[in-house]
């Protein structure tokens, strides 16, 4: 049994509280990871604000990286000392979706998201001598250390700084995969990206890397649009200065609309906008995660008459074991930016400030440094 400091959410609507928890050693098929860094993501914020119901109290955080400290019985993927990025969809490998090569849709992982446990119902975190604390997305990386399933650890090269590597656990892979896997953006095609936060910037850079032109970034925060240009946006639309972002994108694409439109905000209005700004026969990819009770209105006649492909992208439709090391190779080769994604670094005790900044829309990505 070890003691770790962790940021616990007691109930929705509250602030996170940093407390000392007991962490049980890893059981069979589990891995204990000493965490170095964790990104602060909108999905955590959804839980804090009560928009995404998961069992509480829980240790949040699902975008993390660290070093393996111990492995449970039967674990072969990693050894103590290995650097790892955590995957928040550890595909079970057995369900229908895992078997057809869509591990991001894993039934078992989806079930465990709602259950707030590790596989088999295991709970490895508890208050000293007291009640267990739930896991979040089988990751719970707002802590000095965590226990995760073997399939949730992705071994990575040790020369990548772990604060950068952490971002590849969610934001980078989600944005990259939406472009490369879900949309399959082709060179020379036009791309519009609504929302240029941590994930949106990665949609922008993957689109640019795929040879798209123009790459149109849409956001309400001029500083984020400036950043989007650094990540490869060729045009920007400041949504705080126009109420017709659809018209603006149509004007920038010879009156047609974009070949691919990505929504990376997670709001009904912006989803409808992204749909509207795709050309006839174009592809609309919803990446942003909206609260589960919301609905989107789109024109019914346009569904057949404009024949757009409207789809979503969950975790970038990625295979984390393949995509995460690949993305890190691209970073080390200087082809993909990670450094510029980190707007601010925080200590674990400053987790609430990191969420305040995310709420205010000030940052691309805030990262908690966990000292591991």
């Amino acid at each position: 049994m070890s003691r770790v400091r962790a940021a616990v959410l007691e109930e929705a609507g509250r602030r996170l509280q940093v407390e000392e928890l007991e962490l049980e050693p890893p059981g069979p098929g589990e891995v204990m990871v000493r965490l170095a860094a964790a990104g602060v993501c909108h999905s955590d914020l959804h839980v804090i604000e009560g928009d995404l119901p998961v069992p509480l109290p829980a240790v949040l955080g699902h975008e993390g990286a660290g070093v393996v400290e111990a492995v449970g019985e039967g674990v072969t993927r990693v050894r103590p000392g290995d650097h790892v990025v955590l995957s928040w969809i550890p595909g079970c490998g057995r369900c229908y979706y895992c078997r057809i090569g869509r591990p991001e849709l894993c039934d078992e992982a989806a079930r465990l998201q709602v259950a707030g446990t590790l596989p088999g119902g295991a709970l490895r975190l508890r208050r000293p001598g007291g009640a267990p604390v739930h896991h979040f997305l089988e990751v719970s990386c707002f802590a000095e250390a965590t226990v995760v399933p073997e399939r949730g650890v992705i071994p990575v090269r040790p020369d990548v700084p772990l604060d950068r590597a952490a971002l590849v656990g969610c934001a980078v892979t989600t944005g990259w995969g939406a472009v490369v896997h879900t949309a399959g953006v082709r060179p020379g095609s036009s791309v519009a990206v609504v929302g240029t936060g941590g994930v949106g910037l990665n949609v922008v850079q993957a689109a640019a890397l795929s040879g798209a032109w123009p790459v149109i970034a849409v956001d309400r925060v001029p500083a984020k649009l400036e950043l989007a240009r650094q990540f490869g946006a060729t045009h920007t639309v400041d949504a705080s200065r126009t109420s017709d972002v659809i018209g603006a994108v149509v004007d920038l694409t010879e009156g047609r609309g974009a070949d691919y439109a990505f929504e990376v905000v997670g709001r009904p209005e912006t989803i409808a906008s992204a749909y509207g700004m795709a050309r006839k026969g174009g592809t609309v990819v919803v990446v942003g995660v909206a609260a589960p009770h919301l609905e989107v209105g789109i024109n019914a006649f346009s569904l057949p008459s404009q024949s757009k492909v409207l789809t979503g992208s969950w975790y970038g439709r990625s295979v984390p074991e393949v995509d995460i090391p690949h993305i890190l190779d691209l970073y080390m080769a200087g082809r993909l930016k990670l450094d510029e994604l980190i707007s601010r670094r925080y200590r674990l005790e400053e987790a609430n400030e990191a969420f305040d900044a995310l709420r205010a829309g000030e940052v691309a990505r805030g990262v908690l440094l966990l000292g591991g």
Partner: protein
Amino acid sequence: MPTFRDAEQARAILGAVAERARFGEAARGLREAELVVAFVYHDPELTVLMDGRTPAPDGAYMRVAFDTLEPAPDVVFESSGEVGNRFWQGRLDVPMALARGQVKARGPINRALKLLPILPGLYETYREVVREMGAGELLEP
């Protein structure tokens, strides 16, 4: 794209257009269809109600009122002011704007869309009024 400075400006321009158009062909179309059409704009907030159903005392084909939905409109077109400005210049592909969601419509819009072919006169009047009011920056080349 250019848009109205504020609701005042939008109301002044559309009020003047309506005043000139009340006896025109588009208004007659509205009267013959006995339609009440509302344009609900956001940013700036303004509602324009064109009533071709209630007879006007001076024999005009329509009555125009702002910021009311009385009498209840048959058809409502809702959009941003920016898209509205584009529409009144005749620069908006209306079926396309509906498909894209730039304009949201409620009611039997086919009856209103039937009027589209007789609107060009109105677009001309709009551009005239905008120029006379020194608001040329609203017009697209």
